[in-house]
């Protein structure tokens, strides 16, 4: 591929690309995102390739391994264009049938379609599936359409036209102005207006400046940024180049966690391709703007997602945050003006430049504009990535898109904002999603993790879990965070183990206040949030643990016990065989008994007890009924029949 030297050359190259594409030619897009690969997408892709070769269809059909379209619950996801037929949970065995029926005979394979659980109706087209229909996908929609390793695919959907427009139709000040006007706020968590950050850097005196992509997505249960990096790396790169032009930077960095090997690979490839095509390097598209991008891998430290810690890590040192008396957009990386934005923020930039600030600001609430990608996970029917307009209610996300809670369980809370966020209870479900709205409710937007919890989730344990995470990830610089969190974790662990005592909640609150007041960075300042928000909405659970030594959700191991209801046990022996610690006594026709001293509360017996018996019970806060007397343990035929 020869370099593209002028905007005209870019447009004629694009025209040529499009003219070579036949829109009616079938294309099989298979999600090759991490979620689908874990469900076996690799085998499916290989099966399609073999089948197409065997049938000698290479000249008639395209196949693509694409980025994540979001519906991870039903992966591997396959979409067939141009009809947009969507097949879910496809296995390698289904492939010959798909080729035979859909590709050759243009018939739909009914059994692989989405079935609406409410109406039982099959849905053929991807956009008609309720999970997608209720979203507004401006960023994620491209993922399934393009081969994430192909710059030509990105160009075919209009890629790098925003860069073209910015370089030749706008001054850097215009670009900053447009981003400012759109009121794009940082998608990484804090929601700082991107345009203002850019302007600060642009106006800084120092000549050497940097723009940086924060792809150190460390929140457990969140993978939005990864999906974009893996699926559509050029969109982020294009945003970054435009940002570089706007603030006057010569170099860009992409800081991506090493735990995302595919993202590292795809973004590195994208950079090489962009250099080859002339979107990076000297005199981009013939303009006098030159720019290069370097990928830097993180080495596994949550705190490096914090802006100053990330920059310290980029300098090759231990990622500890530093005080921000002077903001990093004035003095950041190597003491020079540095604009750091999250992956999703950068991906929005080309869209804003192409469609204008007004288009972007049309969607959303007063303070939060545009769309936001959430990773909807936990106790939810449709796990996956969802992109929704700001201002949508949590209820719509969880029920209309997420399909509600599985197994008929009751919703308890939704946790947003990652480890530093908070839990929002049922009565607040009509809350509109936006930066300010979530903060008011005691949580935060964060980067977009949304973890749904049902009645089986213990809120004290959730608080303990997050504090444990943050204790582990605290860099150790500030005492209130390093030592305070450790003490909080100790007290919370005690509470979940039934060793809580009066005064614990007050001590926890005091430790929280100190951490909030006296920590340097956002990690420490917001670390007590998981405790404070669960205490605010679920105080009775804390009290049950401390006062009654009872876990209302039947989840804390030390506070629960398993026992076998002698009325229901039919001595099938499954639990006895599966028990990992041989704690179950019994024999053929002898009612089984759990030895409470040996039991480790792993729950295997409850899991394996056939549902028609349902003999294993989980209890908390009450004594375990004494074992049935030895002479009554023998099951007669009649008894056995009555159980069944």
């Amino acid at each position: 591929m020869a370099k593209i030297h002028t905007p005209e050359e870019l447009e004629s190259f694009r025209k040529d690309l499009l003219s070579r594409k036949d829109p009616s030619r079938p294309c099989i897009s298979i999600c090759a995102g991490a979620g689908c690969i874990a469900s076996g997408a690799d085998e499916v892709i290989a099966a399609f390739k073999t089948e197409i070769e065997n049938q000698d269809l290479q000249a008639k059909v395209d196949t693509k391994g694409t980025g994540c379209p979001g519906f991870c619950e039903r992966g591997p996801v396959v979409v067939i264009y141009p009809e947009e037929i969507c097949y879910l949970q496809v296995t390698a065995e289904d492939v010959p049938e798909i080729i035979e029926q859909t590709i050759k005979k243009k018939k739909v394979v009914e059994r692989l379609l989405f079935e609406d659980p409410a109406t039982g109706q099959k849905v053929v087209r991807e956009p008609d599936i309720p999970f997608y229909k209720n979203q507004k996908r401006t960023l994620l929609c491209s993922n399934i359409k393009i081969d994430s390793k192909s710059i030509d695919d990105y160009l075919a959907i209009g890629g790098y036209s925003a860069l073209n427009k910015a370089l030749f139709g706008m001054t850097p000040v215009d670009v900053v102005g447009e981003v400012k006007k759109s009121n794009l706020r940082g998608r990484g968590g804090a929601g700082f207006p991107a345009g203002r950050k850019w302007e600060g850097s642009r106006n800084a005196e120092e000549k050497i400046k940097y723009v940086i992509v924060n792809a150190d997505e460390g929140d457990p249960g969140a993978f939005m940024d990864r999906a974009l990096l893996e699926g559509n790396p050029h969109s982020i790169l294009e945003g970054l180049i435009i940002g570089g032009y706007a603030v006057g930077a010569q170099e860009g960095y992409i800081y991506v966690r090493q735990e995302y090997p595919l993202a590292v690979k795809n973004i590195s490839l994208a950079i090489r391709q962009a250099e080859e095509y002339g979107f990076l390097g000297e005199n981009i598209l013939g303009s006098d703007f030159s720019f290069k991008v370097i990928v830097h891998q993180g080495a596994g430290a949550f705190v490096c997602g914090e802006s100053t810690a990330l920059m310290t890590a980029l300098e090759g040192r231990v990622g500890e945050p530093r005080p921000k008396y002077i903001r990093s957009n004035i003095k950041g990386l190597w003491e020079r003006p540095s604009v750091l934005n999250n992956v999703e923020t950068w991906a929005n930039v080309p869209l804003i430049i192409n469609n204008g600030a007004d288009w972007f600001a049309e969607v959303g609430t007063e303070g939060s504009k545009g769309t936001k990608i959430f990773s909807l996970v936990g106790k939810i029917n449709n796990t996956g990535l969802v992109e929704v307009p700001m201002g949508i209610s949590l209820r719509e996300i969880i029920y209309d898109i997420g399909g509600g809670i599985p197994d008929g369980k009751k919703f308890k809370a939704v946790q947003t904002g990652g480890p530093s966020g908070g839990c929002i209870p049922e009565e607040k479900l009509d809350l509109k999603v936006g930066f300010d709205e979530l903060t008011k409710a005691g949580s935060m937007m964060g980067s977009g993790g949304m973890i749904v919890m049902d009645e089986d989730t213990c809120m004290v344990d959730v608080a303990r879990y997050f504090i444990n995470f943050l204790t582990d990830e605290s860099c150790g610089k500030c005492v209130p965070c390093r030592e305070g969190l450790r003490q909080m974790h100790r007290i919370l662990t005690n509470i979940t183990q039934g060793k809580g005592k009066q005064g614990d909640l007050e001590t926890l609150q005091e430790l929280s206040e100190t951490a909030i007041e006296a920590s340097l960075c956002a990690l420490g300042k917001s670390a007590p949030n998981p405790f404070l928000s669960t205490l605010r909405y679920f105080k009775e659970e804390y009290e049950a643990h401390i006062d009654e030594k009872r876990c209302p959700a039947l989840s804390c191991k030390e506070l629960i016990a398993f026992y076998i209801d002698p009325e229901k046990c039919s001595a099938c022996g499954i639990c006895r065989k599966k028990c990992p610690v041989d704690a179950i006594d019994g024999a053929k026709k002898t009612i089984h008994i759990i030895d409470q001293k040996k039991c480790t509360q792993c729950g295997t017996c409850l899991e394996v007890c056939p549902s028609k018996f349902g003999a294993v019970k989980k209890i908390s806060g009450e004594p375990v009924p004494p074992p049935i007397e030895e002479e009554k343990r023998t099951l007669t035929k009649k008894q056995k029949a009555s159980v069944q």
Partner: protein
Amino acid sequence: MDNDRIDQIIEKHHGEPSYLIQVLLDIQSENHWLPKAALERVGEKLKVPYTRIQHIATFYKAFSLVPKGRHGIHICMGTACHVRGATRILDAVQDQTGIKPGETDLDLKFSLETVNCLGCCALGPVMEVDGKAHGKMTPSQSAEVLKTYE
């Protein structure tokens, strides 16, 4: 790992001290752990004090200063897996292997680690062995999976 290979890695990163973390990551990914001799070599070549290398190698989770087992078990402890019972999987795996997170057994068969999110939340709780994800685990299933590794 011999010095020539280490020098090649350093060369790849242009011998820049600011690429120290990248150099260590490359060594870790090839050798699976960071031997003392390798760290000393890196310090010499990049002209970075050994204390700083130690600081980095102990601060970041990706680095190991001890050898690893033949099979790496990663139990996802991300929030989604946590609410779906990841702790029970971890307990079961600990019982079976006799090692705790961060440890390697004496036969160098398994190394156990917890990770904070593998990003396949739809399959939670997830256990990853040698890079292969095993989804929707139960304690008894995790035991079955581990039995298949030699």
